[in-house]
């Protein structure tokens, strides 16, 4: 079981991007994102120019987590996915693992059945990539000691 999201290297991100790209090819969906349940976007494929993906990630995770709480109130362990249907654009969110979600934005004219069908193996491929990242030696290849906190005296400055 993954206890926390591991540091991700280029191979991890490429592996996940490949799974997303394959999914987009299979479904013709517009954009696919991998986000963590805390609201961060991890990576994405597809159209990023027409959407504020950072905000979508935060709101989608909030909506999914709210649904997870609703599930517990109706005595379900969890709702594995959430579908939001619009007139021209829809969104489907599928659980990847304990910590991550797959978010898909697609034209409403597309078959949601196909999106759901192909989302399952895509989520599994991404989960596998995350498991292999987790299985690496903790923090292997990551050394942030060169970052000096003294340099961060004023990370944020106020406009005069």
């Amino acid at each position, binding site marked *: 079981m993954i206890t926390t*999201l591991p540091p991700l290297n280029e191979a991890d*991100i490429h592996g996940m991007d490949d799974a997303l790209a394959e999914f987009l090819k299979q479904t013709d969906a517009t954009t696919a994102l991998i986000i963590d349940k805390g609201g961060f976007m991890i990576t994405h494929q597809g159209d990023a120019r027409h959407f504020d993906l950072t905000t979508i990630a935060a709101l989608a995770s909030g909506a999914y987590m709210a649904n997870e709480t609703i599930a517990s109130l109706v005595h379900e362990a969890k709702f594995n996915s959430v579908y939001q249907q619009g007139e021209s654009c829809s969104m489907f969110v599928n659980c990847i693992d304990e910590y991550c979600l797959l978010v898909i934005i697609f034209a409403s004219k597309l078959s949601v059945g196909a999106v759901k069908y192909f989302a399952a193996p895509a989520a599994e491929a991404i989960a596998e990539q995350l498991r292999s990242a987790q299985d690496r030696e903790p923090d292997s290849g990551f050394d942030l*000691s060169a*970052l000096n906190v003294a340099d961060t005296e004023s990370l944020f400055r106020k406009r005069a």
Partner: protein
Amino acid sequence: MAILNAATKEVQLKIVYYGPALCGKTTNLVEVHKRVQTAPGNKGRLVSLATNSDRTLFFDFLPIEAKTVKGFKTKFQLYTVPGQVIYNATRQLVLRGVDGIVFVADSQYSKMAENVESFQNLEENLRAVNLNLADLPYVLQYNKRDLEGAAPVEYLEFLLNSRDVQVPSFPATAHDCTGVFETLNAISRSLLSKFITQHSPQVAA
């Protein structure tokens, strides 16, 4: 839960502003959004999921990128929780994956009980999401210092900051931005320091 993405050389960290109803959590984010100096594109939109009367219903959200430190982009996501007592389930949701906390206290004498209750609620809700306040970087902000009924800072320190380990605290008047950036910089530094330590080779004593 911080995310380290070596492919894009990004560190992402989540800060939650917590505190009793109407203490100024949303005002902090509004002031940061209004006044922060950033390069174009480094500041996202401020999203507020609020009721008709402008009270926070779910959360406020502000993504913001700090200056690049040694080639790493540091991205912070600032959230508030709804302060009203009835929205406790929502507060737990927002705390999921949190990396650092700003506890905003209302300095008015009449709000002391609410401050203490909210702080206890924070500890309970962290436990509910398998976190412990003692393990998280957090800072205190004593807001509304401009009001006549403001209690002395020493009294707030006694009530909220008299644990074994004292944390940084900042007097503030959020609506005119006093203390807002000092608070944000302190929690950001503290978070980053902890994150860097976690991802640095351990040197044997």
